[in-house]
Each structure stands twice: as structure tokens, then as C-alpha cells.
């Protein structure tokens, strides 16, 4: 049967924030980056015909309500020498995964850590953590540490290396209503 399996999302639903038109315009103007000029918020304000104080207040608010995770730089980690990158997946006791997920996520070499649904009889793993090292030996050391941290709450685990990047365009916000 041609269908996709979909699992209910039991927790942590994201509450969308109602965006004003000005917020949307700011998102569209900055999704490729912040202007690299001495007064970037003034530059955005001039473009939108509002005051720089208004623009700064909007950014402050979007940071406070989580619409913006952070303002800053994203390095190309391959270029910085992080050539060993893997998706680690773990089958962790449901009773303990909330506590252990927080601890795995706090490890310095973990960039993303999520709880996701298992796929019955095909995919037993519920905890996903992306890890990054300079070489495979780094990754092996990290796996040993993660395995020890999870202890007997871990039933199985696997490491998936990416063999090819088939697409990497990033998300785009079109500004539609």
C-alpha cells in the first residue's frame, strides 16, 4: 500500500506566534543575513520606512518569544575541520528518555538532539543525536561516552554516516499570509 506512516505527536507542541506584517518583512529581509554595514538595524529601518528603535524592539521581541533562536554566525563545520559527522540513534527506555535526552543534548559534541517516534518492526530508535568530530576516532570516543551515560536504559543503538548530500537548500520563508 502506498501510504506513509504517521505517528501522533504526544508532547511539546510548538505554539505559533502571531506575526505582524512588519515582523514578516523583517524576516524576509534578513533570512539571507543581517546587513554588513555599521548600523544594520538603521539600514533595515530605512528600507521598511520605520524607526530603528522599532526594528530593534521587534528583534528583541522575536528573540524573547523564540521566533528567533539566536542572531549570529553559522560556520561551515567541514571547513573548520569537522569531517566526521554522524546521526546517532538510540533505543532508550521510555520511562527515562526525557531525563537522558536532556543529558545527551548537553554534551559538547552534540548539535541536535530529539525524541522521535519509533517505526514498529523496522526502526526501534527513539532518541536522535547528531555528533561531530574531526575524525572517526573522535566519534568512537563520543559513542563510548554516550553509551556509558545511557547505561542500562539503552537497549540498542546505531550510527548512520551520511554517504551523500542529495540536497541542501535550507528553509525558505516566502512571507505568504
Amino acid at each position, binding site marked *: 500500500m502506498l501510504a506513509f506512516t504517521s505517528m501522533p505527536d504526544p508532547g511539546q507542541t510548538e505554539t505559533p506566534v502571531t506575526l505582524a506584517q512588519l515582523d514578516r518583512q523583517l524576516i524576509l529581509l534578513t533570512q539571507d543575513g543581517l*546587513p554588513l554595514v555599521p548600523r544594520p538595524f538603521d539600514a533595515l529601518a530605512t528600507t521598511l520606512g520605520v524607526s530603528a528603535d522599532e526594528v530593534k524592539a521587534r528583534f528583541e521581541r522575536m528573540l524573547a518569544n523564540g521566533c528567533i533562536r539566536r542572531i549570529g554566525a553559522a560556520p561551515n563545520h567541514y571547513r573548520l575541520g569537522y569531517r566526521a559527522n554522524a546521526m546517532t540513534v538510540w533505543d532508550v527506555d521510555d520511562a527515562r528518555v526525557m531525563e537522558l535526552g536532556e543529558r545527551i543534548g548537553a554534551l559538547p559534541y552534540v548539535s541536535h538532539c530529539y525524541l522521535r517516534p519509533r517505526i514498529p518492526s523496522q526502526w526501534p530508535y527513539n532518541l536522535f543525536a547528531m555528533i561531530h568530530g574531526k575524525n572517526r576516532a573522535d566519534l568512537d570516543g563520543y559513542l563510548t561516552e554516550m553509551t556509558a551515560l545511557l547505561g542500562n536504559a539503552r537497549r540498542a543503538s546505531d550510527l548512520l554516516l551520511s554517504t551523500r548530500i542529495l540536497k541542501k537548500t535550507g528553509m525558505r520563508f516566502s512571507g505568504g499570509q
Partner: protein
Amino acid sequence: MTAQPIHPHATGRITHDSSDYQLDSVDRRLINTLQIGFPICDEPYAAVASELDISETDLLERLQRLLHTGYLTRFGPFYHAERLGGGLTLAAMEIPAHDVERVTAAINRHAEVAHNYERDHALNLWFVVATEKPEHIDAVLTAIALESGYPVHNLPKQREFYVGLHFHA
């Protein structure tokens, strides 16, 4: 009012060149500092420059160069798709080797597919779908299942424990 682009040559995403520019110690401090955060004030670059004991002009030139040479992929606000009201999920498919190219094309032709990786597992295709409205996720995954002829497994996050990208330069 029509929004005018702001100096397209001077924003945080610039086409990379093939330069083999090597980082110096100031570049490394700059990359490490700018991964932590950026102030919202009238002259934020000057504020960061003073923290690093360099001039604002030097900082802006370095930032442009790091983007241009591909050490940084982006500089600016990182928006949270779901908080902005969008849908986001990770999907996985198990595709036999002989059919990977065809199915990859069926997946990648959807603009909503932001990333797609081939991985060394029976479930070998892993892709991220981002939509403007959460209810559109199902439509995209259904279309991919129908076009490819294989099941698509939807693995939406149930809890986010950590998202951060701090790489020591």
C-alpha cells in the same frame, strides 16, 4: 510600500569562491564569538569589535571574507520554523540501490524538501520537509510516496532536547 533589497552584495549570505584562505587567530576568535550571540544596538559590529580589540572596519572586512571563503555559511538571525507557524519534519525511506536516483529526483523536486541525505542504513534516504503551514506536511509526504512507489516514514520531533551549532574554530 515595496521593500527594497539592502545592498545584496553586503548581506550575510554570499556566493563562495574557491579561495584557500587560511584562518588567523583573530578570525578564529571572531567565529567563536559570533556563534554565541550578537547584540541588538545601534552599532553592534563596533560593540563586538571592541570586545575583540579590533576595529569595526577590520571586523566587517573579516566577516565578509569568512562568508566569501566559505568558513561561515550565514550570518544573521536564525528563525524557528515551527514558532513562526510553519511545519517541519524528518522523513525516512528504504530504497533499493537500483532505484535511489529515481526516488531522489522524486523527493528533491519538492521545494519543501530542505535537506536530503543518503545514509548507510537500510533506511537510506533521510530528508527534512519544511512547509509554511503544518497541515501541508502530510500532502508533501503523500505525494512523495505516490510518485516514488515506496512508503515514507514520518518521524516528527516529539521533544527537542537541544539545538545548537557551536564549533570551536
